């Protein structure tokens, strides 16, 4: 690790849903411009950890620092910090009543206070970046899953976020559409975006990740590099998991 100050600090994070310990004492530092991929079996708390980072889940205890600022429960501060953190969901969650362009301009206008022209220009730029500028006037229901997910990425990018969170962005996609989304993500990673991704795309881990975290039962079992993960996994649980997903 370099001496650079981490942009995300997670300290002793716990999140319980009743008796279930979704996140059970996780501490992580993520430096600016780095790509962290979180892997692990379903129910291991990966998504919950990600959702705690932008406070979509209210942690039971622990601290989260974003760019030197500690997250509290104050609604105003949470809203401000969320605007700096783009989030991409498994099920895209585009706004179906708005066109693609309106999806990408809405928060720019409401939160960033940009004019219609300014917001539109940014939106078209981001849509171009994810490779579908021609779909600006389409409605989400007329797009394929891969296209919808790329619009969702453009929507998040239009806010000029410091951090991007990806919550299993390709798990709801048909195989032939996974690549188009991963290509966009890879592009972002290479441009130096700080990213935290929950994903099982091992190709993406190999080519884009700086660090990999393996989670099981809410705990970080292994925190390593992609090379370390594929060539020299330390934990038995990690080895078993890898052997199962790399077998095919």
């Amino acid at each position: 690790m370099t001496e650079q100050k981490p942009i995300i600090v997670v300290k002793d994070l716990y999140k319980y849903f009743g008796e279930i310990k979704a996140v059970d004492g996780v501490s992580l530092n993520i430096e600016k411009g780095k790509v962290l991929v979180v892997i692990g079996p379903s129910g291991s708390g990966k998504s919950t950890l990600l959702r705690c980072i932008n406070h979509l889940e209210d942690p039971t205890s622990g601290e989260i620092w974003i760019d030197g600022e500690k997250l509290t429960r104050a609604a105003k501060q949470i809203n401000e910090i969320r605007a700096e953190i783009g989030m991409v969901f498994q099920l895209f969650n585009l706004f179906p009543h708005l066109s693609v362009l309106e999806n990408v301009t809405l928060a720019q206008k409401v939160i960033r206070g940009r004019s219609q022209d300014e917001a539109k220009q940014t939106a078209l730029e981001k849509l171009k970046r994810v490779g579908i500028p021609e779909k600006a006037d389409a409605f989400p229901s007329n797009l394929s899953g891969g296209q919808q997910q790329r619009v969702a990425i453009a929507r998040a990018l239009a806010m000029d976020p410091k951090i991007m969170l990806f919550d299993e962005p390709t798990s709801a996609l048909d195989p032939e559409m996974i690549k188009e989304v991963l290509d966009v993500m890879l592009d972002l990673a290479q441009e130096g975006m700080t990213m935290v991704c929950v994903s099982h795309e091992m190709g993406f881990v190999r080519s884009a990740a700086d660090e990999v975290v393996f989670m099981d039962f809410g705990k970080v079992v292994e925190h390593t590099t992609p090379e370390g993960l594929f060539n020299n996994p330390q934990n038995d649980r990690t080895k078993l998991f890898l052997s199962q997903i790399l077998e095919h």
Partner: protein
Amino acid sequence: MAEQPQAIKPIIEIIDFSSKRKLRDLPWWFFALILIAIFVFFIITTNENYNDAFNFIKIGLVITIKTTLISYAIAILFGLLAGLGRISKSVILNNISRLYVELIRGIPILVLIFFIAFVGVPVLVDSMNNIGYWLSGIGLDFLGKIFTAITNQDLSMNARAITALAFTYGAYLAEIFRAGIQSIAKGQMEAARSLGMSYAQSMRYVILPQAIRNVLPALGNDFVAMVKDSSLVSVLAVRDITQVSRLYAGTTFRFREAYIILAVLYLTMTVILSLGVQLLERRLRLHD
């Protein structure tokens, strides 16, 4: 209120006559309905007594339509607020809204109209006036004047009737809005929030536009129901078509003429409006 929509649903069938349709599948009941209306309007133009009754009763149409429209507009506002309250995480807002809805739904509309017009509104206005006198007493004359601006003498029965209908229907519409908001997937709110929007902004720009679109047919059906329930304001001597028909029948003893015309007037309004609601429903479905 709720049984109305089912009963008239098949009307939409008559809009698309397909040539292959068998005679037995035609909506004969609807033709009969139209025939009845045409027949009555024919009698009105030819028979002197009916003509006289119609000319007297139709004056009430303005009040009926005005009462319904204003009450409904206010009810939408009450309903939206109470609907938002029902899904609110705030214990206070949630319970106030729930209390309002359950209170209204547990009392017959006729009783509510009496209650609101003769108890609710006067008590509220009196307490406001008393606060006003007290404020004037402690020297806040300006504020005092605001609270004493309206007294019970100023409030006509029309205004009380509108208040009663709006307050009552607000509770029914609240449940429609609540269901509409809850029908929107959780991910929509999360996506909006994750972009930095507040709860209120997410509601306004993302959730409500979708929810309201989903409940438009239900809102339309309740509007039709309100046209009919507006007849209840006649108990407050508000001169809607029901009240003027009663007046006409009472003074001329032409009960038959008065009530046939009254029934056909309501029928005409509700059938036309129901058709409108169904066209709307159909258009919304085509756009999905």
